């Protein structure tokens, strides 16, 4: 397998898993919370390293999922104590992220998880960081991790499709019907956390939120059906990741930065040209309404 193949596979896996999880985050209006989680999971990674003394991906996932869910628990606690939700998110997120950064700089400076790598990501190194798992050689660790995460995400979304749908659309009815609304929330937060961790190597903590939010927001503007929104979001995630990589290689720019930029560009295009939600379409239909007003 060639170097570029692994890069593109990694980028596509990031695009798909972030894309499908992002749909649920968008529909639940949780962009802010996912931004917070994608940062605080750094604390989960470093804690699991300090506790287990290994860089095993599995422990990193567990650590990340726990801290991700803890983030939402703390936010909810502050919130129900009367702190506004965006302020609660801001406080929890900066606090936990800061602890993560401090722990990394104190205890893990010489280990491979250097701060810069986790924060900025570096997909260019991924093809060389292979592991031999299940007797299969030569597959990069990031591809393994992203593959597992994608399977978990897909499995949970398919299993809980209608539950996620109702609790996103109408949490009141979902709770009245007795769906496990709270559990669904934490399952999604766990999915967001492990997806963010698996994507760190490629895009880093700062920009993973762009991959989580932008493709879903783009798909939201373009479709009227939930299953289509998942598919489109995954496709946009892949397009952003792959084109971002090539443009960055061509301009010799930051790969993570260019992927996030392309995700933003796709959103902008949809925002302007979407036949239903785009600003051009809205202008046009407004003018039509005004004309009708004048005529009558």
């Amino acid at each position, binding site marked *: 397998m060639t170097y570029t193949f692994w890069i593109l596979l990694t980028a596509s896996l990031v695009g798909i898993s972030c894309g499908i999880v992002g749909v649920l985050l968008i*529909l639940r209006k949780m962009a802010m919370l996912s931004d917070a989680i994608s940062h605080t999971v750094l604390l989960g990674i470093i804690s699991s390293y300090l506790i287990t003394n290994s860089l095993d991906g599995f422990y990193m996932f567990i650590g990340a999922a726990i801290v991700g869910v803890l983030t939402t628990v703390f936010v909810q606690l502050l919130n129900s104590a*009367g702190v506004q939700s965006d302020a609660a998110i801001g406080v929890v997120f900066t606090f936990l992220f800061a602890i993560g950064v401090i722990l990394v700089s104190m205890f893990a400076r010489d280990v491979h998880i250097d701060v810069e790598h986790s924060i900025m990501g570096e997909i260019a190194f991924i093809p060389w960081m292979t592991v031999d798992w299940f007797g299969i050689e030569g597959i990069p660790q990031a591809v393994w991790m992203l593959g597992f995460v994608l399977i978990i995400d897909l499995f949970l979304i398919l*299993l*809980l*499709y*209608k*539950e996620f*749908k*109702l609790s*996103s*659309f*109408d949490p*009141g*009815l*979902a*709770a*009245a*019907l*007795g*769906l496990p609304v709270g559990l669904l929330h934490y399952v999604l937060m766990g999915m967001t956390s492990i997806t963010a961790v698996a994507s760190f190597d490629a895009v880093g903590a700062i920009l993973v939120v762009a991959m989580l939010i932008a493709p879903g927001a783009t798909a*939201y503007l373009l*479709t*009227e*059906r*939930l299953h*289509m*929104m998942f598919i489109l979001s995954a496709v946009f995630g892949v397009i952003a990741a792959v084109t971002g990589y090539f443009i960055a290689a061509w301009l010799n720019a930051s790969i993570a930065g260019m992927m996030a930029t392309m995700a933003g560009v796709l959103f902008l295009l949809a925002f302007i040209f979407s036949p239903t*939600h785009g600003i051009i379409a809205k202008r046009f239909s407004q003018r039509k309404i005004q004309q009708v007003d004048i005529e009558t």
Partner: protein
Amino acid sequence: MNPITANNITVAYHRKPVLQSVSFEAPEGKLIGIIGPNGAGKSTLLKSILGLVPKASGDVNIYGKTYRKQRQIVGYVPQRGSVDWDFPTSALDVVLMGRYRQIGLFRRPKKNDVKEAMSCLEKVGMEQYANRQISQLSGGQQQRVFLARALAQNAHIYFMDEPFIGVDAATEKAIVQLLSELREQGKTVIVVHHDLQTVKDYFDWVMLLNVRKIAFGPTNETFTSDLLQKTYGGKLTFLDQKEEEGVPFA
């Protein structure tokens, strides 16, 4: 046995009480209106009965059992404005949501659920819009979809939060028709209502609420200008007009 028995319900948001010691017993097979000014706690009362907001004190029984045990016989129509109508889904899909409890965790809707949902859409005159994206429906049509979803719950007791708000005259008529059909089937319907002009036409019983329960009883005994003054304070100009015109309010 009474469909709803509420004992001393108190609800507070951030320590500010929005419902205080509300007790009542709702009679079976009646259309019951809940009225009161904005922020009186009407929506909160419904939510506390359905266990959607924590109660500081008090308890509620549905036919003598807790709500948790009676979910399957209770239908709920939240305020239309409480959901995102740009959500990527169709009218039929929203109605199907009413059956998610019967369908069960992890399971997908079956043909027979779709058929049931379609017939509920028919009951509100919306079958030709089944596949429409919900954002392309008018306010009245959206409300009908919400009602169809409640019908799909196939309940004995219905709670509806301001179903008449922002709907066209045809929809208002359709809803009134639907309410009386539900009553004929012996169902109990509790409706949060804002339009005082129609209270006497629409409801058998009425609750006047403003943080506390001001009154609860048959409409002709309860919907009196005295009690309304007590509920709304001195702001009820339309009542004065009616009295001047010589239409006594009793």
